[in-house]
């Protein structure tokens, strides 16, 4: 492991409780040619694009005299500090230092591994090299036919763990979201990635966790509305699988897929997390039916995620344990998995 050379990344900040994982750094459209300042993982960072347009995410302050590299310029594909024109390449190595024959070995910044995909720039947190590749979800690729996509990004006052464990908590659908259903919700942990192969290629088995949530058709007001829209059914199934910091979710009505979505997170600081959703609603080629389904699903996803926000924003800070009932086994299982990957974060101290 390369020793750290700047104050900015000298330690893993306490209180974040993040697993080693892939996170959304920011939507790709937010980074053009100019470098930009961002705060991520509780650290001040800079994001920029090198000569080939590939994104780089690294500590913001120049190791020389601490100037913000976000005020710098990309020159010949390298980031040039505004203060004394030191230049850094995409590996964080200082490649030019005006007026000096020999570049000090400490003139180096450690970038976070990044990948640009699904309209996001992703950053790996927790070790110098990623411990597994970014999971794939082909239905979100722009050129994939048969889908209509939309995206949500919501700031929350909650931790990453609390946002993600919510998917493994079928009971809150009834209580918080006021889902009136004809019978009890069920949850079954998945044991085999075959059960989610429509989400995409298998995820690294150690990082993978999945569950299947089922509930019978809607009753009450929602039942009436969904019947009217032709989106009610006898049985709904939600399958979730993912890695410690993100989830692939598919939603089925009577065995027919309705939409798939990717849920990912941007940890800015303790109790400050952005929740990202990209949803792909399945289309059949029948225009009016597709439009109706798209709008109904978009409404439902947006509405439900906005019902979660006030709870997230006022929750107890941090990731303290709670009281677990038998029906909370999904949440408990997720928390265990998540913490195992928190423990895999390399100790930089």
């Amino acid at each position, binding site marked *: 492991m390369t020793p750290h050379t700047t104050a900015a990344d000298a330690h893993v900040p306490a209180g974040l409780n993040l697993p080693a994982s892939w996170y959304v750094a*920011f939507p790709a459209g*937010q*980074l053009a040619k100019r470098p*930009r*300042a*961002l*705060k991520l993982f509780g650290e001040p960072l800079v*994001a920029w694009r090198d000569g080939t347009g590939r994104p780089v995410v690294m500590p913001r302050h120049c190791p020389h005299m601490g100037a913000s590299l976000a005020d710098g310029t990309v020159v010949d594909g390298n980031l040039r500090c505004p203060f004394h024109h030191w230049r850094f390449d995409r590996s964080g190595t200082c490649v030019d230092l005006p007026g000096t024959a020999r570049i000090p070995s400490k003139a180096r910044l450690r970038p976070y591994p990044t990948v640009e995909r699904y309209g996001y720039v992703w950053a790996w947190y927790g070790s110098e090299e990623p411990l597994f590749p970014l999971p794939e979800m082909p239905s979100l690729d722009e050129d994939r036919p048969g889908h209509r996509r939309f995206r949500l*990004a919501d*700031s*929350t*006052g909650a931790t990453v763990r*609390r946002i993600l464990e919510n998917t493994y*908590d079928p*009971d*809150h659908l*009834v*209580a*918080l979201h006021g889902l009136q259903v004809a019978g*009890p919700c069920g949850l079954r942990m998945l044991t085999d990635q075959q059960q989610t192969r429509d989400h995409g290629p298998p995820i690294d088995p150690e990082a993978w966790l999945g569950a299947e949530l089922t509930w019978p058709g809607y009753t009450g007001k929602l039942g009436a509305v969904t019947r009217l829209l032709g989106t009610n059914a006898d049985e709904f199934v939600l399958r979730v699988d993912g890695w410690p910091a993100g989830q692939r979710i598919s939603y089925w009505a009577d065995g027919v897929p309705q939409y798939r979505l990717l849920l990912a997170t941007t940890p*800015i*600081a*303790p*109790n*400050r*997390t*952005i929740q990202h959703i990209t949803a792909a609603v399945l289309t059949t080629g029948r225009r009016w039916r597709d439009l109706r389904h798209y709008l109904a699903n978009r409404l439902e996803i947006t509405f439900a995620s906005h019902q979660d926000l*006030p*709870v997230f*924003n*006022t*929750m*107890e*800070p941090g990731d*303290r344990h*709670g*009281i677990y*009932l*038998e*029906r*909370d086994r999904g*949440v408990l299982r997720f928390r265990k998995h998540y913490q195992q990957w928190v423990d895999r974060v390399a100790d930089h101290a």
Partner: protein
Amino acid sequence: MTGDPAPQARPTPTAVPELAAGWYVALPSTALAKPRALDLFGRELVAWRDGAGRAVVMPRYCPHLSASLALGKVVDGHLRCRFHHWRFDGSGTCTRVPGARRIPETAHRRTYPVIERYGFVWAWYGGDEPMYPLPDFPALESQRDRYATYRFSHTTPASPRRVLENAFDFSHFTTLHGVKSARSLDLTMLTDPAAAAENGPPIDAEVWAGARLASRELQLPRALTALGIEGKSFALLVDGWTGGQRLTFFLDGKVVAKELLGITPVSRGRTVFQGWSLVRRSGRVWRDAPTYLAYRAQHLLGTREDLMIYRHAQETHSGVPVKNDHGVLKFRKLYQTWVERAQRAEHDGTART
């Protein structure tokens, strides 16, 4: 990404150091309709009203998965968490967990002892059982029609102790507030709660501190004399407990005003002091109106002078005491014994944080 879209990290209260066991103002009664988040005693709490309208103050977060109960709703007189619909009654007992046959032992919350009086919800700090009753202040109840009243509320970084000890610091009346008197002010610490009968029935002697401040040759500011307010001798009778005080102001032996002061310890470095001022009515409007306004203006100006000192003062234990500080020192000594009582009581009942 450059603009910071996420909500600011919520300020979480930090424990109030050296807080005495006592009755404190939690919030004004009118501020409590729906369940609401409350920072008090340096803790994150929730306040709500049960089916009978009784105020309840208890820890804010649901013991299940930590949602804020301040988002909850009162259903059948019980507070229902928004997240999974667990319910809690006015005693903090968890009464319903949807889908569970047995309610977990650890699901119960401990509530703070609460009394609603004088337009405020008062909460007890320091263990589960109040160690003395909330003091009486008849001027706001049976004798209320004798006074023109108004409410006040000020926020300061000073500790609750500093706000309370101020009344026993007689020398600051001349130096800071510019009270002029031909002969120096006298402060007599009282030894018997019955000596403060003008303020109300005696307060529990163990927590009580009282003093009488007198000036025989007072020079009233010209603003007051111009209004026809006259008086040669002035006296202030103050007594109280660890979370509040009762005050009576006399001019030439007659009551001119009273005050009830309650302390709200929000967090370390954040204290609200609030209460009621009562200005004696004579029944003659042309005389009462200017007196009321003059008192109110004087009170506000004086409070602002205190607030300025509080804002920049450093919290001290001993400082450099001089003879004139005997009132303050006596109060601090008493206060400290109640800090210790609170520490013991909170240590014995640690589940309620």
